[in-house]
């Protein structure tokens, strides 16, 4: 397993797309900083009555979509590039048990996902906190410790997307297909679910990946576009399922399908 891990780590390190995707994922912090700085400028220029009513979204939550999509795509490409280039036959011939290839890829991509997730989410939070101070009714002036559970929970969604990408890539063996599913999960489905009648909108909306961090930590807000009907443990289980179910099915198929 150590040997396969070393091989998969080198595979990821030795193509340029990895660095490009990591760069875009981490650029979230700069975007967050820019938006926070511009919001601070607008806030300062506004009259006190408007300042009192002004609200700002949690930027690290709103911007988490960037590292989520990036790592989803990285996971997808790590797997589908093997199929499009034909390299998969070499990889499977080197490791005839096959599942270690998928396991090692998941560990390597997952580690990067966690790394990028923590850096992007915490980085954006601290950038916004620094730029905003106690503006917007002190939205970013609360104790850091109170925010840590939600920030950790948000960071973990990036890891989930990385693993989901690997799993979907291995299942569908097509970058276009797997990327479409990931974008649908982030964008398409929540928009559709928002429009369907209750109670299904609330029920299904609670299952969306974006809905899970706040349900896990219990930081429910009224303005959320998602549902919030899951208890913290159930929400945590759903999040783990997003990462592991596609991977488990993919691993089972990988060991059985002709390469």
């Amino acid at each position, binding site marked *: 397993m150590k*040997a396969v891990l070393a091989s998969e780590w080198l595979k990821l390190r030795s193509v340029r797309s990895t660095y490009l995707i990591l760069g875009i994922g981490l650029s979230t912090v700069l975007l967050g900083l820019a938006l926070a700085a511009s919001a601070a400028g607008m806030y300062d220029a506004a009259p006190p009555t408007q300042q009192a009513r002004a609200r700002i979204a949690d930027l690290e939550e709103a911007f988490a979509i960037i590292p989520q999509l990036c790592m989803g795509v990285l996971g997808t490409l790590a797997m589908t590039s093997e199929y499009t*280039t*034909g390299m998969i*036959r070499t990889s499977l*011939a*080197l490791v005839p048990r096959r599942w270690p290839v998928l396991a090692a890829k998941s560990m390597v991509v997952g580690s990067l996902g966690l790394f990028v997730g923590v850096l992007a989410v915490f980085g954006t939070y601290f950038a916004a906190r620094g730029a905003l101070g106690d503006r917007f009714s002190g939205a970013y002036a609360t104790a850091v410790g109170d925010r840590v559970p939600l920030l950790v929970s948000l960071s973990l969604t990036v890891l989930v997307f990385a693993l989901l990408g690997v799993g979907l890539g291995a299942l569908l063996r097509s970058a276009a297909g797997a990327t479409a599913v990931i974008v649908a999960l982030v964008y398409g489905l929540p928009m559709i679910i928002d429009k369907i009648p209750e109670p299904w909108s609330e029920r299904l909306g609670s299952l969306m990946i974006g809905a899970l961090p706040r349900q896990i930590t219990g930081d429910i807000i009224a303005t959320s576009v998602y549902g919030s009907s899951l208890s913290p443990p159930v929400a945590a289980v759903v999040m783990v399922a997003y990462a592991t179910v596609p991977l488990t099915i993919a691993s089972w198929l990988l060991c059985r399908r002709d390469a």
Partner: protein
Amino acid sequence: MVRRAGDPPPRILYGVIELQHLTKRYGGTLAVDDLSFAVAPGHVTGFLGPNGAGKSTTMRLILGLDAPTSGQALVNGRRYTSFRKPLREVGALLDASAVHGGRSAYNHLLCMARANGIGLKRVVQVLEQVGLASVARKRVGGISLGMKQRLGIASALLGNPGVLMFDEPVNGLDPDGVRWIRDLLRSLAAEGRTILLSSHLMSAMALTAERIVIIGRGRLITEATVAELTARHRSLEDAYMALTSGSLEYGAA
């Protein structure tokens, strides 16, 4: 005994490939049909047959990439899927273009080597052996098909295995390269390795191989030495034409 990572383990190179009633069915088509033959060490065995005869499928079955419908393929008496470090047992070149175009030849080989616990020194060694040392750091997408064939041969040699399989390795090679690979294969065989070589180039095959296995429509047509075939026909090409005339899958009427 301490073994340095770069050195392949010392061992006898003699290996053997055995097919026992190997059969592979894809849906309604029988790609390989009750195929039994053995490939012995010490010489190059030519693997011939018309397009669609099942040569590549047979090689994939030997490498455990496809699972046989029935029968089995053994390498050194074992199923390929039972090997933990298969590169040290079997080296194969199936499709030279099946490499990530964005990776360098060096990194491609190192990815393979790492997976089977082979050291960096061996990677440098095979790159020099196939004459790719000067372009090893270039992205593979930018090198010629002939160079990709050399890279494929390097990857087959990586684990210094006793059994080697090459599917159409001369495609895209210049005359110089064709001669190089012929000499290389013969010298690898002379070291006692088992070599299975598929190619459509009959004249080159006649100069490289000592034994020939011909299949058609997934079945064994003949197994003979080149000397036997050329004794009964004017050339290996004539022998091939006469023997496969009944089993052309895709031919002009």
